[in-house]
């Protein structure tokens, strides 16, 4: 059974849906272009959240240094930053530049991360929580970033402070216009400055808490990019810091306005936007955009997949499903009927319906004589029993010189086109939903080779599927493919839905390899369930 990802009302595809899928197509193409150079595990576009966290740690580290050496009084700060930039350019200056450029990079990857999650349709259902907790992070990021520019107390700081307070004054929050604080040089005080530093340190703290909440409901969070990515990114930022060090403008002078500013467009774009529109317009846009982000998960979207169901009698409490579930949807509780044992519990609102748990359960092995295979945790849309029946039926119809079974996933390369007399195809929600014992079962049930077509590395719709499949096949993760199974008869391909040519070629190469292989290097005895049952 191929799981339907079509819209509930197929005759009507909304503007939003077509915009989204166009964005997805574009994003995916660019991402796959990056794959060529970086590979999936070090492709920054596939790890934007982790990149964001990495930039945040750079910001926090460099920020703490700056805070410890700067004189944060209204009269001292400008000179002390200037001194640091000139006299200690090799350390303080570089750290200042890193602080600034990492902030810009943070904003950039955050925006890309948001667009990517939206484009791939990862904002509703079981991802609702991640999406909604992401929205306040946008606000917190901007407040921390903008307030950072004020601390320098140069002309740019002055401009941003006045423009921001003028914007805030449009809202009925202060009894006196906040912009009055910046009328004349003597109208600002050290107290204001202390408050500013407090905001610039306090909001990022809230941001970190917010991010903790943001990733709270998924497991094995991509907390940091790969080493290669971290080194590459740091080297890039360092080079930028040396080539174009962050500098201050002239010192603030409230008796003057600047006629030309070196504006940071990532963080301060809001000021020109206010100038060309109006505070009312900007607030309306900000509020509308925020509301839209919150509403997005409630707009029409594909129906949720049925969730995993646990079978009391077949769950032995081994916790493998808990270890493999990418969405932290599983917890363990005391078994209701077997004292001393545990049982898996599925939180329906977190479950993605990916079936990865069914693929991890030791009870999912097809080498069981029961007529109806019942496992510990299973998917209503394609149960392990359905899968075995489908496989058996397809195996019995296979013919030709080399009979190959291809297991694929509904988000990756389109395997259905490969179906022919010597090739059986079976599509799952994710290749990790396939218990590895099925590979052995297929080989012993008449197949000469088994190919698994997972998504590209880092491209699994369910976050971890391609990784788990790879580790299980290579014996690095439970449930392992038994070591007796000759790996020469198994091929694991990583391909996206743009890689259909690659898929066809991989099958051809695999077939050649099998056909040129000695028959006797296959030590597996045949296994036919019905025969063995009667024997």
């Amino acid at each position, binding site marked *: 059974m191929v799981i339907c990802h079509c819209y509930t009302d197929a005759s009507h595809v909304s503007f939003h849906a077509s915009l989204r899928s166009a964005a997805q197509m574009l994003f995916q193409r660019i991402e796959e272009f*990056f794959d*060529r*150079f*970086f*590979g999936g595990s070090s492709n920054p576009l596939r790890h934007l959240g982790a990149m964001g966290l990495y930039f945040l740690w750079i910001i926090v580290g460099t920020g703490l240094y700056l805070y410890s050496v700067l004189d944060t009084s209204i009269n001292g700060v400008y000179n002390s930053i200037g001194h640091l930039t000139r006299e200690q350019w090799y350390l303080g200056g570089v750290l200042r530049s890193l602080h*600034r*450029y990492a902030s*810009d*990079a943070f904003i*950039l990857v955050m925006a890309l991360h948001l667009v990517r999650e939206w484009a791939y349709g990862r904002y509703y259902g079981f991802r609702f929580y991640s999406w909604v907790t992401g929205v306040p992070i946008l606000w917190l990021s901007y407040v921390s970033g903008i307030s950072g520019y004020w601390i320098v107390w140069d002309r740019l700081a002055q*401009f941003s402070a006045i*423009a921001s307070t*003028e914007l805030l*004054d449009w809202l009925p929050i202060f*009894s*006196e*216009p906040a*912009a*009055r604080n910046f*009328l*004349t040089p003597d109208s600002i005080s050290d107290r204001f400055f202390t408050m500013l530093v407090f905001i610039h340190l306090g909001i990022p703290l809230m941001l970190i808490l917010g991010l903790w909440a943001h990733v709270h409901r998924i497991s094995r969070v991509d907390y940091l990019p790969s080493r290669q990515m971290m080194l*590459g*990114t740091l*080297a*890039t*930022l360092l*080079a*930028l810091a040396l*080539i*174009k060090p*962050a500098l201050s403008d002239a010192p603030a002078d*409230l*008796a*003057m*306005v*600047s*006629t*030309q*500013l*070196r*504006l*940071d*467009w*990532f963080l301060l774009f809001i*000021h*020109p936007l206010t*100038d060309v529109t109006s505070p009312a317009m900007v607030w309306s846009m900000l509020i509308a955009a925020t509301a839209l982000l919150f509403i997005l998960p409630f707009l029409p979207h594909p129906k949720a997949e049925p969730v995993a169901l646990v079978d009391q009698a077949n769950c032995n409490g081994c916790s493998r499903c808990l270890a493999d579930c990418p969405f932290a949807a599983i917890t363990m509780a005391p078994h209701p009927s077997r004292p001393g044992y545990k049982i898996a519990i599925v939180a329906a609102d977190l479950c993605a319906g990916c079936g990865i748990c069914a693929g991890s359960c030791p009870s999912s092995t097809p080498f069981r004589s029961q007529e109806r295979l019942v496992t510990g945790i299973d998917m209503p849309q394609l149960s392990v029993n359905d899968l075995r029946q489908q496989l058996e039926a397809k195996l019995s119809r296979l013919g030709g010189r080399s009979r190959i079974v291809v297991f694929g996933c509904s988000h990756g390369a389109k395997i259905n086109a490969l179906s022919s007399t010597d090739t059986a195809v079976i599509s799952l929600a994710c290749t990790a939903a396939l218990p590895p014992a099925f590979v052995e079962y297929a080989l012993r049930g008449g197949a000469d080779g088994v190919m698994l077509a997972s998504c590209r590395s880092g491209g699994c719709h369910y976050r971890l599927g391609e990784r788990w499949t790879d580790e299980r096949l290579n014996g690095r993760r439970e449930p392992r493919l038994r070591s007796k199974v000759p790996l020469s008869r198994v091929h694991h391909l990583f391909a996206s839905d743009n890689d259909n040519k690659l898929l066809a070629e991989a099958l051809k190469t695999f077939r050649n390899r099998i056909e040129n292989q000695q028959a006797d290097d296959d030590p597996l005895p045949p296994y036919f369930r019905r025969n063995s049952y009667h024997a």
Partner: protein
Amino acid sequence: MPKAVAIVGQIVLYGAFAAFIGYFATYPRYRPIPDDAALIKLSMSHLGGRECRKRTPEELENMPRNMRAPLDCPRHRSDIKLEVDLDGQPLFSTIMQPTGLSKDGVSTVYKRFQLKAGSYRLSVRMNDNLINPGYNHVKEEQITLKPAQVLVIDFNPDKGGLFFRQ
């Protein structure tokens, strides 16, 4: 793909990333006002007068002895009327309302005007207690604004009422 090509590709892409960040961190330059412009900022925060009423002798007669104040002053403050002229032409006029639920707070205004640098006759009139006619605060002066200069019109009773500050 050969490893060397992949590495070159990575360097190019990281370089593009750095160029993008580095460029938009300071470019394009932003010009909030034209080179030959100056600003006048009108900003005040002032408590309007109270609209007191003289009590009639009969009223006072009917009140307890210890409460016989000659004036009846409500809590709320008067609106403040403000007019600004530039070279004899009206530039701005407003009636500022007191803040606070019972209208007993300060009245405020904050307004920014951009003009060409040069010399102007600036006059400001204010009435902070509308029970009285006319304007009880007036300030008029010939001003010269250099490019990019900010002139502030403010009010401070301790500094003699309305004042300009450059």
